[in-house]
């Protein structure tokens, strides 16, 4: 199962421990990690459900290419890092 790790900068606002998740794409993995927690989801996604402009997601060290659809594939052993983009300061 892919592992998802959130930036410590987010931990300051909401508890988001690293966890194993299912899913074949970044979107599926992220949505499983966030579950039904609308509050947590709002930290990573905007009102329209798009990844926030100043959040960046890496899969096995590579920034995702499909920021809008988050359709980049993830493998069972992938590590997904959700980081703050320095464009946001």
């Amino acid at each position, binding site marked *: 199962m892919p592992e998802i790790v959130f930036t410590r900068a987010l931990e300051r606002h909401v508890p988001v421990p690293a966890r194993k998740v299912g899913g074949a794409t970044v979107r599926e993995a992220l949505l499983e990690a966030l579950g039904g927690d609308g509050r947590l989801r709002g930290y990573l996604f*905007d*009102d*329209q*459900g*798009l990844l926030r402009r100043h959040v960046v997601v890496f899969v096995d060290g590579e920034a995702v290419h499909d920021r*809008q659809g988050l359709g980049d594939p993830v493998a069972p052993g992938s590590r997904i890092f959700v980081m*703050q983009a320095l464009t946001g300061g």
Partner: protein
Amino acid sequence: MADQLQLATRKGLFLLARRGGRFRVERVPFLGDPVTALLEDRRDGALYAALNLGHFGVKLHRSDDGGRSFVEVRAPSFAALEGGQGPSVAQIWTLAEGGVDEPGVLWAGTIPAALFRSADRGESWSLVRSLWERPERRSWFGGGYPEPGVHSICVDPRDPRTLLLAISCGGVWFTSDAAASFECRSRGMYAEYMPPERREDPNIQDPHRLVQSPTHPDVLWVQHHNGVFRSTDLAQRWTEVDAIRPSKFGFAVAVHPRDPATAWFVPAARDERRVPVDGCLRVARTRDGGRSFETFGQGLPEEHAYDLVYRHGLSVDPAGEELAMGSTTGHLWASSDGGER
């Protein structure tokens, strides 16, 4: 005399208390986070703080113990549209409480320019569609931000169904039916930043800040991009106050809590040079409805001052004696005698 001071800053919410005659910082909730709006609800004492986290979006927190602890409540948001093509709230720019007979009712003004209403102390919000769907909205534009925004909400103390909003840049808007319908009320204002044929278009005016006299709610003051304006008929007609000194450009205005003829401003040099006139920071006060002004600088920097007091950076206490103002360069000043020192 006010003994507490609450400052919403880019670096957190600073809660100050007067101890031994001086204000001292007591607590700093949200240290390091931009606090874009603050409301102390006079009906139940709740304190609301809106945050704009650079990476993680707009948040709203409420305290029911005077700022000792906060809980995150729902922030206003737009409904998601197909394909993610709709808007997102970029900032909560102002918060206002509903009427005394409307417990739990809150209003939020946002960027992009929208009005949201909560009936449950911020646990949920609904977009006011009557304003959002006005066709004039397509002509509005940003003032200081890429998108237009609602920065002032005045709830009429006589009737909370009557509201006035100010939008940069979209003029002043009025409702008397609890936001079921709106009309633009910017007549008399002018915009030097527009082509001549659009100069008096009410829908593109840039009122930097709108305040309403609590005791004479028909009296309103606006610090506009192009000058100071006053209305005595609930915004049906605005008249320029050209006696303002040392300049007519600025952002902030505060009105006296009892005397509608008394108001304070913090002028800056001009649009294209947003620093104090001659590097000397001054507060301007009128006590005769804008016919004349006094300017005060005692205790303020007299040279090499580059402070700008932005829209919400000037406040007066319920007695009309204590003034406080904070600048974009991080300075805070307080006065106990109506701004004179």
